[in-house]
């Protein structure tokens, strides 16, 4: 069984997941405060690894070079700042720009990690549950695309194989041009095949009454009371964070002068709200794992 299927947060109603990820990524994109980025990063890494296991750790490790590259590259193009560390190509390479680069790079990596979690949690059927009612035709189209792609990938291999066995198609030692043209040939044959198959799909849709009535949308998941509670909690937390952001509580300027709002006093509550919000999937995961242990030992 895949790890995602054991995850309590993935079992929640899709609206919960969607709200969370829009929050995590959207709020994260507005905050450049290093402490907040660090917090978001910690929760993202934890949840990502819970979902993906050791493979997750690998991805996290791979993002380190990207982080370093972006960090060190920023001062090369942004020369603002007070403390000049050195000169590169006669231009100042400043401490402030370096820290700024670090913040931006961190934010980017954190966003990508949350997107990775999103991909694991928000599968296509969840997407459909959310949007099937709002944009029924587009959602249906998306479903059809998702069904067609694996079929087509298989067919591409078949087409290429079939051509190879009659001595057409690019040989192993073919030039780039031959390969490109041959794969376009395959793509064009694939298209004919898919379009003709589509005619049957369309018939099958008609046969099952597509377009006769206003379409309803079948949902596998029902909104449970726990989902509603979770959504309310998230909404309250998100509101608190937005207020904090609007009030400048998360403000952080790097260049030309570094000014980072300290997380003290009234801002501490907002920071806590941010952490609680981001920790929800992890907390749910751990809570369920613990409950499972207890219920098992109880038997």
């Amino acid at each position, binding site marked *: 069984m895949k790890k995602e299927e054991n995850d309590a947060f993935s079992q929640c109603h899709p609206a919960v997941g969607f709200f969370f990820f829009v929050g995590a990524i959207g709020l994260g994109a507005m905050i450049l405060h290093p402490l907040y980025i660090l917090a978001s990063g910690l929760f993202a890494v934890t949840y990502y690894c819970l979902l993906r296991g050791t493979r997750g750790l690998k991805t996290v490790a791979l993002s380190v070079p990207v982080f370093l590259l972006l960090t060190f590259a920023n001062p090369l193009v942004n020369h603002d700042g007070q403390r000049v560390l050195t000169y590169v190509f006669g231009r100042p390479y400043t401490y402030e720009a370096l820290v700024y680069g670090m913040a931006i790079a961190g934010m980017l990596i954190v966003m990508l990690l949350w997107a990775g979690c999103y991909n694991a949690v928000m599968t296509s059927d969840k997407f459909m549950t959310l949007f099937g009612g709002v944009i029924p*035709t587009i959602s249906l189209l998306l479903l059809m695309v998702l069904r067609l792609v694996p079929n087509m990938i298989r067919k591409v291999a078949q087409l290429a194989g079939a051509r190879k066995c009659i001595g057409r198609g690019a040989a192993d030692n073919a030039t780039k041009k031959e390969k490109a043209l041959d*794969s376009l040939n395959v793509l064009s044959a694939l298209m004919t095949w898919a379009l003709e198959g589509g005619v049957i*799909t369309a018939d099958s849709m008609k046969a099952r009454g597509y377009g006769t009535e206003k379409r309803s949308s079948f949902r596998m998941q029902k909104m449970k009371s726990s989902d509603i509670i979770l959504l309310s909690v998230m909404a309250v937390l998100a509101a608190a964070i937005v207020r904090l952001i609007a009030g400048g509580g998360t403000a952080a300027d790097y260049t030309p002068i570094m000014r980072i709002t300290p997380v003290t006093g009234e801002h501490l509550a907002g920071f806590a709200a941010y952490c609680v919000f981001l920790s929800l999937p992890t907390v749910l995961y751990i809570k369920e794992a613990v409950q499972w242990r207890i219920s098992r030992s109880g038997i």
Partner: protein
Amino acid sequence: MKKSQIVMFVMLLAVIPATLLLGMRLPGRSYYLLSAVVALEILVPFFMAFEGRRPRPRELVTVAVMAALVTIARVAVPLPSFKPTFAVIMLAGIAFGPETGFIVGALGALGSDFFYGQGPFTPWQMMAYGMAGVLSGLGFAEGRLARKNWVMGVYCFVCTVLFIGPLLDTSTVTIIATKFTWENMLPIYLSGFPVNVMQGLCSFITLFFFGNAILEKLERVKTQYGMMESEDGI
């Protein structure tokens, strides 16, 4: 005026400027968030128009096939830098017009992100791919440009290199640039340039060799099976 056109105007003249104004007043650095919201707002009128049209099954299926091909174009070719993605979208735009072209592009982007992973770039990508469909649709609508292979090829090359490519690079800019000066943004656009030229070349090659052959196929499903007609079947 059609409902979708009204929505389009409202979006362009009111909602998007309002978003931008509001965004400027937000503290901190919200360029990315702002741009993603605008990208999504651009999707809305196109989606609404498509929903409102209640397309028939055969049109839906054809659009789905083209959108799926956008994903396939990323994997089917065994050469790493050769991705005829935009050629597929642009052909759809030429064959079906700008509105449907947009849907093919946007859906192609969303669909392929389901396979290769979605990310903060998804709204941008949907918008930019959709725009590729719109551009080609506009260029070749009502016989404005001749549907000759080389004309389509050159047009798509130009669109990719001058418009779609930079549009996608802009999404990178909103995420990683720390300062919106030319000096700061230029390296990002410059590093994107060779990729865009390569993409443009792929589009050119695809259309130059296969443009009309593929249009013919789309034409065939239209005539053979009355696919896009308002009255099909009975």
